[in-house]
């Protein structure tokens, strides 16, 4: 036999050739060039056909001669025949063209041009193929990412236009998703190791340009930016600028996309990253120690449950903080370059101006979303947009749809730098509309809760008489209303007890007031909040006074005696108007044995000390020595303890500005009467897993011999018929028979048959 040379494996299909070329490009150069020229001639044929096709299309628009029909048919069908071959060749060449860069220098340009200029006449399959080929070429490094993006973006725009997407067989939707996904993966891959700032900047520039145009094309820019933000690929302030522009856009859809981005994007991103981070931190020991310390106070199950919840909240917060430390984590709202200007423009263009015709672009839900954004911006950055408060007046009536959301937004928009008279009008409005005897419980509860939220942010928002009136609702029969009133009371006990009636102040607050009075001077002047005063910011290191206190306790136990004595005197002096229930301090004034009750005393002292001198503690500790890591660990533990204690006490938290007001919570707990099924379900739920405590009557478990009753039943009929117990029944009198029957029935019923 003759030796089989290379001719034996001469390729006669494209796939085989592709394999061979990839293995040995130099030897198969000739074949490749042949196929390349084949591609060129096919492409030329295709161009010719495409031209004829579009020309025929024009012709048939103008005049419908019967002669043309044949032509159109022939050409279009011809085109379809060569499409498959052309697709195959394009795939082949893009696979191997990195082997012959000098011969195929023009190839990628041709593909791009084909796609950009003739996309209207190309069939869908071919377009898809070209797109995937271009992506592949990008992965092989033949074309740069910028080039690919410059090809993809115009296509995306072209296919979101009305004219193109309505065309027959345009597959606009599929193409859009394909291109969009390609874009996202492209940017993701480009930013995989380190940030590709050049590419990001150029893409963001494209987004900016898109958003500058007045039509709806910018929607893609908004969508893309949001997606990339969600994945943490773009997280700088330029991204936020894009969305700012989107939010201020005149087109409704784009504007809403921008607004929703600012409202939701951070939550979305956190969700994305929460999935990724599943490592439990080693802080469980810490929590355990903490639990042990608080267990000493534990008395009831409810209290234990509360403790559990508090711990889980604290832990969750800590976890979240740890997970987010991995990447640059600023929320979108914090990254804004000019929050005041942005908010003002947002309010002016979308809500304000009083021009109702322009506002009608948005329906109510959308307007509420914009309100939420504006108020969140105001609350976070403490901005001054005075128009919004009077704007809320229009919507604050109980019959308004989604009024809780509006109320939440209104509360969110308040902070302590807003002039009190503006807010007082708002609070007055809420009180008038919502809180009166004539309204439903839920409405009153919602109104009170809103006022509480407002006042927690801006204590000066309410006048003293109104506050005292509202607090009176704590005696309401409806649980939601009384809870809401009590929470309002709780807020003012902490912030400004002087504004409350004397009997409502509570023990600790009353003590404070008296203390100040005793020290001399004007009580109201020192304690009451004043407009423009900075109360929230911490100086030095947060919680340092706790550490100082702890240190002092550990060092000198002997001093405690004196301090405790002092404390006792003070509490005795103010013992007259103690409410007792609300304060965290346990009623331990009369405990003489100090050494055993370390914990309680510590907490009591902490409260006293904390109010007096955080600044002094800072000087004392940070001025005298250097803090070690162990110190910081202890500090963290102490702060956690305090957090838990505060949560358990139910007192209002300090920093409120950035917290989001939950609209659903405003109404408070609503309890409707349950139906029978619901009650039954609840009862049965309680019985689950408690079988062994139930009655065992009528239940025979395990193996057992036949009972007498069973034997009696199964006994043969013929044997029984002669017995007196059977035949005697026939002879009974009517009266007796009735008696027996009645007795039988009652007996059976009692047995449960």
């Amino acid at each position, binding site marked *: 036999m003759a030796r089989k*040379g*290379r*001719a034996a494996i*001469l*390729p*006669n*299909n*494209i796939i085989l*050739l592709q394999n061979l070329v990839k293995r040995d490009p130099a*030897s*198969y*150069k*000739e*074949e490749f*060039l*042949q*196929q390349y*020229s*084949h591609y060129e*001639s*096919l*492409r*030329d*044929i295709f*161009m*010719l056909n*495409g*031209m004829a096709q579009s020309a025929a299309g024009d012709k048939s628009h103008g005049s419908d001669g019967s*002669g043309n029909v*044949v*032509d159109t*048919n*022939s*050409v279009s*069908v*011809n085109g379809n*025949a*060569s499409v498959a071959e052309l697709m195959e060749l394009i795939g082949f060449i893009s696979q191997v063209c990195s082997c012959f860069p000098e011969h195929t*220098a*023009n190839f990628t*340009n*041709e593909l791009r*041009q*084909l796609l950009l200029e*003739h996309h209207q006449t190309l069939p869908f399959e071919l377009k898809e193929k070209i797109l995937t080929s271009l992506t592949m070429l990008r992965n092989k490094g033949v074309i740069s990412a910028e080039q690919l993006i410059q090809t993809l973006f115009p296509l995306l725009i072209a296919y979101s236009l009305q004219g193109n997407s309505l065309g027959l067989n345009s597959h606009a939707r599929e193409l859009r998703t394909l291109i969009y996904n390609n874009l996202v993966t492209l940017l993701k891959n480009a930013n995989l190791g380190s940030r590709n700032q050049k590419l990001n900047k150029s893409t963001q520039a494209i987004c900016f340009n898109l958003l500058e145009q007045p039509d709806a094309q910018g929607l893609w820019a908004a969508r893309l930016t949001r997606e990339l933000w969600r994945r943490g690929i773009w997280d700088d302030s330029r991204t936020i600028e894009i969305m700012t522009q989107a939010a201020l856009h005149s087109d409704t859809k784009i504007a809403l996309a921008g607004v929703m981005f600012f409202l939701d994007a951070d939550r979305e991103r956190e969700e994305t990253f929460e999935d990724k981070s599943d490592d439990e931190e080693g802080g469980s020991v810490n929590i355990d120690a903490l639990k042990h310390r608080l267990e000493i106070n534990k008395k009831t199950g409810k209290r234990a449950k509360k403790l559990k919840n508090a711990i889980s909240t604290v832990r969750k917060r800590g976890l979240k903080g740890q997970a987010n430390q991995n990447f640059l984590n600023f929320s979108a709202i914090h990254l804004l370059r000019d929050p005041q200007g942005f908010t003002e423009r947002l309010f002016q263009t979308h809500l304000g101006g009083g021009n109702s015709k322009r506002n009608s672009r948005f329906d109510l839900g959308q307007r509420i979303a914009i309100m939420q954004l504006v108020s969140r911006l105001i609350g976070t950055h403490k901005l001054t947009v005075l128009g919004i408060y009077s704007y809320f007046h229009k919507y604050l009536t109980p019959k308004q749809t989604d009024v809780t959301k509006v109320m939440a937004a209104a509360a969110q928009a308040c902070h302590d730098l807003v002039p009190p008279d503006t807010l007082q009008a708002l609070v007055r409005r809420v009180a008038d509309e919502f809180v009166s005897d004539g309204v439903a419980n839920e409405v009153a509860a919602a109104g009170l809760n809103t006022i509480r939220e407002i006042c927690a942010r801006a204590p000066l928002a309410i006048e003293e008489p109104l506050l005292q009136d509202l607090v009176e609702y704590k005696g309401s029969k409806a649980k939601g209303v009384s809870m809401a009133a009590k929470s309002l009371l709780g807020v003012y006990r902490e912030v400004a007890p002087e504004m409350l009636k004397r009997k409502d102040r509570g023990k600790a607050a009353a003590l404070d007031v008296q203390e100040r009075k005793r020290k001399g001077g004007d009580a109201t002047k020192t304690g009451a909040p004043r407009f423009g005063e900075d109360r929230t910011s911490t100086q030095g290191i947060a919680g340092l006074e706790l550490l100082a206190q702890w240190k002092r306790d550990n060092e000198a136990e002997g001093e405690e005696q004196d301090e405790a004595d002092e404390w006792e005197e003070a509490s005795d002096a103010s013992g007259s108007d103690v409410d007792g229930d609300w304060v965290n301090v346990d009623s331990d004034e009369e405990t003489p044995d100090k050494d055993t009750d370390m914990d309680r005393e510590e907490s009591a002292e902490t409260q006293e000390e904390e109010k007096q001198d955080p600044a002094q503690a800072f000087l004392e500790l940070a001025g005298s020595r250097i803090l070690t890591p162990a110190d910081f660990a202890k500090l963290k533990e102490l702060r956690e303890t305090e957090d838990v204690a505060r949560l358990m006490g139910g007192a209002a938290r300090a920093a409120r500005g950035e917290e989001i007001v939950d609209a659903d919570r405003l109404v408070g707990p609503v309890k409707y009467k349950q139906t029978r099924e619901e009650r039954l379900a609840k009862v049965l739920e309680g019985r689950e897993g408690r079988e062994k405590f139930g009655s065992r009557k009528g239940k025979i478990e395990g193996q057992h011999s036949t009972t007498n009753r069973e034997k009696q039943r199964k006994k043969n009929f013929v044997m029984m018929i002669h017995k007196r117990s059977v035949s005697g029944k026939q002879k009974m009198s009517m009266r007796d028979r009735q008696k027996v029957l009645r007795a039988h029935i009652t007996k059976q019923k009692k047995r449960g048959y």
Partner: protein
Amino acid sequence: MTKSRKQKQKKKDFQKKRLKVGKKADKASNHTDTSFVAKAISVKNQHLEHETDLSKRLSLLRHHNVTVRRETLQEYQKHLPSIIKTQLMTPLLTHAIPLICDDSKIVRDALIELLEEIGNLDVHVLILHCNIFVLYINMAMTHIVPRIQMDSTRFLACLLKYCSEEIVRQAWLKLLNAVISVLGWGLFGNNQASGALQTKKRDIKNTKVHLDVLTELIRVGCSDMKAIAAAEAAAKSEDGASVDIVSNDVNNPHMIPDYPQPYEYLKLFARTLKNKTDIQNSAMPSSSSMTNQDLDSRRAIFEEKFLQKIDKQIDTFIKEGGECGKSANNLKQLLADLFT
């Protein structure tokens, strides 16, 4: 005993039916009811002249069955004299030309016959569709299936026979390149592993066709056909006519040329990809269509690029002798005549 319903039915089948007087016999089991209730019967007009409507058969050229395709081609060939002047020719050709790349040989053979017939009847039809022909022939010449590639030169030969001038004017360089690559002479770098080169040794018959076509192509492309024709005419008539014809070109430079699409190089109506020209301008300035237009530039390109290569290859063929040797000798003769 009671029997089941099925048993009874089965039994009934084999019982003989008694015919009774005055009663109709039962209908047979395979009886079909042909009665109908209608006020009027509408019979569609019979389509009697379907055989004359040849345009209906165009789609059969893409039929999946080989025989159908061939028979359709032959059918058209039979009717050619009647349709050659009609509108039908353009769709016919646009459908038929892609068959140059058909998989089966019999279809390609039938197509060649059809083209010959068309050429015999009316050359202008072929001339009109020259550009499509060139595209598809070029495609066939670079086809991955060897048999299609081999046959492609036969189509070129057929075209050269009828509209040689038009073809060389349109695609001189392109076709020259393609034929040489079919021969396996490797324009881009002589590659011994090339598949075409390997197969060449096997079928001498095809190689001879290729060589003949190449000879013809060069002869048409590099010699002044008009001058020759004029010389012949002059020799026949022995008048001053030859002077007239030659001076005709010189005297009327502003007249419309007598070949189709004279201003094609302006690309007023062509759809091409723009950026192609950038590369071509830098790398291969000679391949633009302008250079194919006149005789002198064609000769110059040929002399510059192909002459040496062809000379070298021919010699090996002449040494081998045989059929191919003869053709190669012809080619050598031609080259000697043209370029000395």
